[in-house]
């Protein structure tokens, strides 16, 4: 082998390298073009042959929103009105800003968890950085999230929305937290799903819990009222709670008289904590993914 290293080599003929050992998520950055093509493919293929096509991206959350709004806002009295002064003002905006975020998260994590098994044909035959598949699933969800955020902003503008720069920045951070958590968990469950298809069902259950364990449908104050401050602290440890709350802070709060309070210590404590948890999830996901990916080709 020593004779080899001394020879002049062109740029394409680097060292002898071990194939199939990538640099993980860093490889994804190096394969941006392929990532873009994979995302394009997913978006083109998704609604192929359906009459409504991309409109489904609007119809589904729209219907979901109406159902929740009527059931929770009106029947269960979460909407503030003359007869119900204890409710939340502009509950529709409150609800929708949480739903768009949790929908993004659900779609991202659900698709990322299925992405490895779903691309088994490719993974068994050609070596690619396998992280590309979960990451492209997250990216696709991000693209589907965009029209929903446009609707949210339009609705906000109709109700007198005037956010501060800080509020907008916080919302971006909140979105980032959700995306990172989905990436980290998507890597973990995507890899486990290769070995145990139970992972898909576990994720579905987890997503159901996620919708209810974060203040999408109700407000965080109800948690404190019912369970006290300690429980609230535990509740706030859930990064999705923080993520949803950033959207309330940026989209819903500026449409009200700004009387509603954020959870205590939200910006100085819980936001950085959630971001740290999210980053840790990605690192853990990457670690577990790389431990498990060595046997993907033979297990699929």
């Amino acid at each position, binding site marked *: 082998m020593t004779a080899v290293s001394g020879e002049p080599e062109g740029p*394409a003929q680097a060292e*002898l390298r071990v194939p199939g050992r990538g640099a993980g998520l860093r490889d994804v950055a190096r394969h941006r073009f392929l990532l873009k093509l994979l995302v394009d493919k997913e978006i083109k293929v998704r609604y192929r042959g359906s009459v409504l096509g991309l409109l489904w991206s609007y119809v589904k959350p729209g219907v979901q929103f109406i159902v929740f709004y009527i059931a929770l806002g009106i029947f269960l009295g979460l909407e503030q009105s003359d007869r119900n002064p204890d409710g939340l003002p502009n509950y529709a905006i409150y609800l929708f800003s949480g739903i768009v975020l949790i929908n993004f998260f659900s779609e991202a994590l659900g698709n990322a968890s299925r992405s490895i098994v779903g691309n088994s044909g490719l993974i068994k035959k050609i070596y690619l950085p396998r992280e590309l598949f979960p990451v492209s699933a997250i990216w696709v969800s991000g693209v589907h999230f965009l029209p929903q955020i446009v609707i949210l902003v339009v609705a906000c503008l109709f109700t007198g929305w005037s956010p501060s720069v800080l509020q907008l920045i916080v919302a971006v951070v909140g979105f980032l937290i959700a995306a990172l958590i989905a990436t980290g968990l998507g890597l973990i469950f995507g890899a486990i799903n290769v070995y145990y298809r139970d992972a898909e069902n576990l994720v579905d259950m987890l997503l159901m819990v996620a919708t209810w364990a974060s203040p999408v449908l109700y407000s965080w104050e109800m948690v404190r009222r019912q369970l006290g401050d300690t429980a609230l602290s535990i509740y706030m440890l859930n990064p999705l709670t923080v993520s949803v709350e950033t959207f309330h802070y940026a989209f819903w709060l500026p449409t009200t008289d700004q009387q509603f309070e954020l959870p205590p210590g939200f910006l100085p404590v819980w936001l950085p904590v959630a971001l740290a948890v999210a980053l840790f999830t990605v690192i853990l996901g990457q670690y577990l993914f790389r431990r498990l990916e060595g046997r993907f080709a033979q297990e699929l």
Partner: protein
Amino acid sequence: MALAIEIAGIQKRFALRHTRSLKETVLWLLKGRKGDLSKTFPALNDVSLTVEEGETVALLGFNGSGKSTLLKHISGVMLPDTGTVRTRGRVAGLIEVGAGFHPDLSGRDNVFLNGAILGMSEKDIHRQFDSIVDFAEIGEFIDTEVRFYSSGMYLRLAFSVAVHTDPNVFLIDEILAVGDEPFQRKCISKIKELAEAGKTLVVVSHDLDLIAQICRRGIVLEKGRVVHDAPVAEAIAHIRRQ
């Protein structure tokens, strides 16, 4: 000459029976890991070999001898249990043509997607695009969805993308030639052209006559072991004797 592929003492075991459910695994763990969760057999057993740059190597052997598994180790799709595999430069496979094709995308989209999957850059694909379409003889159908292609057109396009990827090491599994007679001849002359251009080729095929035309060296595998490594004519003779 520099080494293109270096395989040192690799071993690979496959499970015969997979335990797919979490329940069975948990029970197995609770019972103190008694017994094997799954039986294994060696797919590759102490395989060592080196391939120089520009060599044309045929992997020969009967079904289940480990040829394709070895190829998957060279491409990095599989990792060995023990031992090491190292390769130089870009390795690309003509392994099951069209693995990266999506039926709902147009031929054009698929050329880009599959080219990128096989390691081509955006610039490479743009530069080679016309040549890919010409070679595949797809013509005006390039913007049609691939699902409407005849199987021949589909394979021609996939093959054409693969031979235009221009890697340093080419891995070819059972698809030396696709399509009708004239196109098959074109495929084979293209592969010979690659060999003459100094590309390293590793070929798996049961078509011994074809292999004799393309490869110089033959490696015979039997039950995951290398049993014969010689000029291709000798290796083929070895296989035919059995």
